[in-house]
């Protein structure tokens, strides 16, 4: 039942709804163009973005773009073992005869998949906790959430991940669980700072004064203003997660052979240095390049934000 | 009347997504020795851009001085380099910014900031430093001139400990430590209460009188311009539309924009206010080819859309940039 308590003289001057909602495609295209204009000012970030896109594409299309997809699983060919880089095997072969280039690309799959899962789980949890703690700043809710966060933050990430991963059976899933468990607090802290200051903005107060529910205020008023730094951090974090994943697989706590993993390949090859140098160097370079790519992209995003 | 500053046909553009924002479109502006000139305009009209161009503090990457000259004591500031420019900035022209809070560095004390200014502008000819006076003494004297009580204590305080009015005074004292020929005050006291603003404006008036400094007073308040300046320029969308002596401008406003502004100002006598000026600022990316006010002007004529009107002299040092006054003062 509409409740109108005043005699409102209404005269609509557009009786035929002459306004039109701009189509979503047009808006999207325009926003992408503006994004690109700002982002491309920094040449390094563009390089980073290119690297990132190449890596992701390669990982998705691995079975079709790699020269020897079958080498990514149990395979032996001792005739071609320990070959130096050549035109047949661009990055050489390992002691089982498997093409290192192919294995690196397949290892990207595991690394990216892990980064994706870790972030997709830990970020929403961290952000949610940060929102709530920030909104209820200076109450027991805030204290409870933030002290727990502090405890997790006080423990060095790699050590915690190692501890968890070694207690559980060593495999990719458990490595991911380990990393996820210690990843969310960073987002909580990030969002907490923003949410607690946004909480006092007049537009939040205006929503409260008009009777909006707490859920509305948290998710529709405050959250959208916190997202940009969160996305930037996510881009930078992909690099970190990959690094930690590589560290875990370096000590054998990640993907198990024969599935390739970057850290594991570095570790396997280490004992053959310096003779079979390609066995370690290429996987290590791959790690560096991927992380650098994500870092440069993340830096570019952050610079864009600060300009505004 | 000695001309101190003469801006001629200044065009300044900003580079943005989509092209150039052609903000200043032929600005002509003069300041004589010992004169108080008011620059009145609303947000986005280009007053701050003009002032920043004088001191050459526009953001490098995105700004472009497309055309024009700024003559200061016989030299074109826009063509100056390094040493000469630095000379102008440290001894010739000083700017007092609008917001005293962000103009002062929060992590240095007032004394430190004042001393820095004095140190970097030292010159035996133009500085106020008499033989044997230390930097600290010069600083305290500057604070005294802006009527700061308790100068010794203030030297050690940090900006955050001071009220808005006092911060503004500190900014002013920084500008007068060396004898300057021109002060540019960007909306002084706007963010402060009206009684404090009154004090600040009086202070500037006193200082200007005492040291025979010229001052450009930027404001969006016609009332302030009327009381505090000798001559006024009215600016709209990157052009000067009218200029006259203060008393003349209010007795005899001519440009449609000036008339619109005056009608929109609430009067103490009551009686309601006009409905404002219809329309909005032009899009600087694609500004109109002719008079930039014509889209909003109730008396616009076909000629207004062809090319920007020049300043027509209507006598009594009163000039109007409007085709209505073509033919020397008659419509």
């Amino acid at each position, binding site marked *: 039942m509409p409740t109108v308590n005043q005699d409102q003289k209404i005269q609509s001057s557009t009786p035929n709804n002459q306004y039109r909602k701009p189509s979503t495609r047009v808006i999207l295209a325009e926003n992408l163009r503006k994004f690109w204009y700002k982002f491309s000012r920094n040449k390094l970030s563009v390089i980073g973005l290119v690297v990132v896109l190449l890596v992701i594409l390669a990982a998705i299309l691995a079975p079709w773009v790699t020269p020897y997809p079958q080498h990514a699983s149990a395979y032996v060919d001792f005739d071609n073992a320990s070959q130096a880089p050549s035109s047949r095997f661009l990055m050489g072969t390992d002691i089982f005869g498997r093409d290192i280039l192919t294995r690196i690309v397949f290892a990207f799959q595991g690394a990216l998949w892990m980064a994706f899962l870790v972030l997709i789980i830990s970020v929403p949890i961290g952000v949610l906790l940060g929102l709530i703690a920030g909104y209820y700043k200076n109450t027991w809710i805030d204290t409870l959430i933030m002290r727990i966060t502090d405890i997790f933050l006080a423990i060095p990430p790699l050590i915690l991940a190692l501890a968890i991963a070694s207690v559980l059976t060593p495999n990719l899933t458990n490595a991911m669980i380990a990393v996820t468990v210690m990843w969310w607090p960073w987002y909580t802290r990030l969002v907490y700072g923003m949410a607690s200051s946004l909480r006092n903005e007049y537009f939040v107060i205006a929503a*409260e*004064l*008009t009777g909006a529910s707490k859920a509305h205020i948290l998710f529709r008023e405050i959250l959208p203003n916190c997202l940009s730094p969160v996305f930037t951090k996510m881009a930078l974090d992909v690099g970190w997660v990959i690094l930690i994943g590589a560290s875990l697989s370096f000590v054998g706590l990640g993907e198990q052979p024969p599935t390739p993993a970057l850290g594991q390949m570095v570790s396997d090859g280490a004992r053959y240095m310096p003779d079979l140098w390609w066995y370690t160097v290429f996987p290590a370079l791959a790690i560096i390049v991927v992380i650098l790519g994500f870092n440069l992209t993340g830096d570019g995003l952050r610079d864009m934000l600060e300009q505004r | 009347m000695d001309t101190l500053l003469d801006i001629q046909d200044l065009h300044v553009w900003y580079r943005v997504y989509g092209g150039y924002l052609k903000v200043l479109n032929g600005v002509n502006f003069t300041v004589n020795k010992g004169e108080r000139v008011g620059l009145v305009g609303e947000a986005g009209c280009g007053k701050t851009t003009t002032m920043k161009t004088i001191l050459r503090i526009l953001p490098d990457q995105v700004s472009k001085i497309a055309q024009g000259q700024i003559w200061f004591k016989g030299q074109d500031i826009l063509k100056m380099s390094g040493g000469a420019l630095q000379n102008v900035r440290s001894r010739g022209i000083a700017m007092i910014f609008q917001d005293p809070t962000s103009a002062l560095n929060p992590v240095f004390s007032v004394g430190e900031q004042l001393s820095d200014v004095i140190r970097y502008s030292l010159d035996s000819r133009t500085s106020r430093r008499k033989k044997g006076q230390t930097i600290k003494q010069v600083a305290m004297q500057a604070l005294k001139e802006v009527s700061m009580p308790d100068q010794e204590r203030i030297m050690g305080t940090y900006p955050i400990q001071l009220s808005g009015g006092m911060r503004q005074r500190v900014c002013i004292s920084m500008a007068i430590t060396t004898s300057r020929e021109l002060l540019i005050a960007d909306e002084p006291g706007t963010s402060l*209460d009206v009684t404090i603003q009154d004090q600040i404006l009086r202070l500037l008036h006193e200082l200007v009188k005492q040291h025979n400094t010229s001052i450009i007073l930027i404001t969006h308040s016609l009332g302030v311009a009327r009381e505090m300046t000798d001559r006024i320029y009215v600016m709209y969308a990157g052009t000067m539309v009218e200029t006259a002596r203060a008393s003349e401008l209010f007795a005899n406003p001519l440009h449609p924009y000036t008339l619109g502004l005056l009608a929109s100002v609430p009067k103490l006598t009551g009686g309601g206010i006009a409905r404002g000026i219809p329309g909005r600022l032009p899009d600087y990316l694609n500004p109109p080819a002719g008079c930039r006010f014509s889209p909003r002007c109730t008396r616009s004529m076909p000629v207004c859309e062809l090319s920007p009107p020049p300043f027509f002299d209507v006598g009594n040092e009163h000039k109007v940039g409007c085709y209505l006054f073509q033919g020397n003062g008659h419509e």
Partner: protein
Amino acid sequence: MNDILQIKNLKKYFIVGKKKEGPIYLRAVDNVNLEIREVETFGLVGESGSGKSTIAYTVMGMYKPTAGEMLFKGENIAMDISKRPHHLKKELQIVFQDPGSSLNPRRSIRQILELPLRLHNVVPANQIEDKIVELLEKVELPPDYMYKSTPSIGGGEKQMVAIARALAASPSFIVLDEPTSALDVSVQAKIINKLLDLQQELNLTYLFITHDLSLMRNMASRVAIMYLGRICELATAKEFFEEPLHPYTRMLLSSIPTVSVEEDLMKPKKVISTGEIPSPVDIPPGCSFHSRCPEKESRCLKDDPEMVEVKPGHWVRCHQFAYQLSAGEQPVPSLEMR
């Protein structure tokens, strides 16, 4: 004409520190009495630290009063927003000073206007879009603005959106806290006239706050001036501006810049204000204004003057006017309820 809002002995103190003797209070609002009549514009004037915004925020429920009563259409509203019944959140609306921060930059105008419509069931769900168009037209904004978000529009237009938002829930009372202070004069003119039109059309009551006295002259029917949490003078606009009595009122009026000779003649003789505004934490004893008052006497340093009705409807808090009462008449200690 009924009173829509009655405020009695309102106090709002903030605790800003602790001393051995007890907490240090910032007396933002200190014993204020006023009533606002239906469909009038009541003006509240003062400098920073005067308490005018605090009163507005307390009326809206952003703060809980420290003491005192507030009645809205007879209903008690002396509580903060979390305890207020839902219908009050519809009846009382506020337009803040800075439209940049009072509108969420990440929400479209449509979303901003939809919220109050939805929360108060102003129209059924399928008519919401039409209602939004109607609101935009009321504030002279084109309908396709509803798909825009606020960073892309100008300050004056943003404030129009804020006004449309206030109108959305069909309120009867709107607080306007310096709604045009951040805007240019020509934009201000448009908005003020629109506000006056809307008041006529929709029978709205306004509590209008500003530091700009010339603007107040053209807006309010009655004006109260505040200093350090107290009302110094309250009168009809005509008397307030043509026959100001309190020294503070006269000081403010004398220092405003004016643009015409007629206005110059109206202003009281120039009073140079010396010194700074004292902070509301450290209010001197006696009359709170004495440190800046050009007309102070010895009793001003000791005794706090009371609010006196010098003429019908014209109240002043100043020792000079306590003498105006003829012998035998009792000074009125606080604003009498009509």
